[in-house]
């Protein structure tokens, strides 16, 4: 086993579960999340020779995961348009029919509200709310200033709050 393979296996061990949960929040389906995680790690493996160590491994992995997830979402949008449905309706359908969704009605409503957020706000919301990533780290992953991320998260919170009709963010920033 060479160094690249050893490093790749460490990345798999360390980040596969986190990447899965991150992706799953976007795609709202276990099967699609599973496929996408494999695509992401294939990308990580092929891009590993170009990893210079300037960015933290964690940031680099998350950046690839986020970009690949956005590409998937864009492809899904086109697929939905070809089926004459909206991506929002498709995401709602996925949330309702997901056999691995184990939450209550409020959790379901939250997932639906998050799925309706614009791309950038959804990214920020998932990273901050579900992945509990500090703004400084998010700033490196998304290549956006901390101030802009805070503003995006605030707007996303407002939209979710308004969609749910109640405040679930008490105590969070």
């Amino acid at each position: 086993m060479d160094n690249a393979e050893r490093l790749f296996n460490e990345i798999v061990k360390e980040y596969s579960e986190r990447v899965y949960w991150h992706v799953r929040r976007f795609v709202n389906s276990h099967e699609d999340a599973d496929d996408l995680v494999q695509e992401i790690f294939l990308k990580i493996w092929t891009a590993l020779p170009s990893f210079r160590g300037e960015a933290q491994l964690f940031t680099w992995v998350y950046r690839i995961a986020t970009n690949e997830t956005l590409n998937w979402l864009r492809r899904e949008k086109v697929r939905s348009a070809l089926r004459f449905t909206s991506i929002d309706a498709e995401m709602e359908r996925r949330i309702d029919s997901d056999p691995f969704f184990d939450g209550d009605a409020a959790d379901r409503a939250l997932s639906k509200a998050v799925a309706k957020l614009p791309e950038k706000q959804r990214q920020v919301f998932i990273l901050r709310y579900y992945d509990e990533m500090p703004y400084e780290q998010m700033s490196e992953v998304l290549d956006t200033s901390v101030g802009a991320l805070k503003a995006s998260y605030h707007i996303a919170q407002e939209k979710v709050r308004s969609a749910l009709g109640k405040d679930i963010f008490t105590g969070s920033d």
Partner: protein
Amino acid sequence: MSKRNDITTPEGYFGDLQKRLSEIPARPVRVSPVHRLAPYAAIAASFLVAVMLGNAILRHTAPAPAEDDTWTYVSYLADALDPDGAVMMDPYDYGEEAGEEGLSAEDIVNYLLADGITVEHLNYLSYEEGY
């Protein structure tokens, strides 16, 4: 409301996922036809861009085509020597009216000469007008 417990995975999923992911380095690298053809497509596109750019540059920098001296001269002669338009109304249109063969400048000069115009007269007129 929990943040993560609302979604689950099949039993033993992450163990299986890690096993599958760690097999990625052993997989043969597959190059899709799109990636294989990409360099050739890039070369073709560059060539096309170069041709279009060259064409655009030439169009903007090349001098305007010089007026056809022969036709200016013939037009002048037609006006000067045949004011009634017996030979032609518009020397630039006559090609269409003259049928498929058309008339050359030489034909017109020959016609004028045959019509009694002397070479000296033609030369005199061309000298006077600076042709």
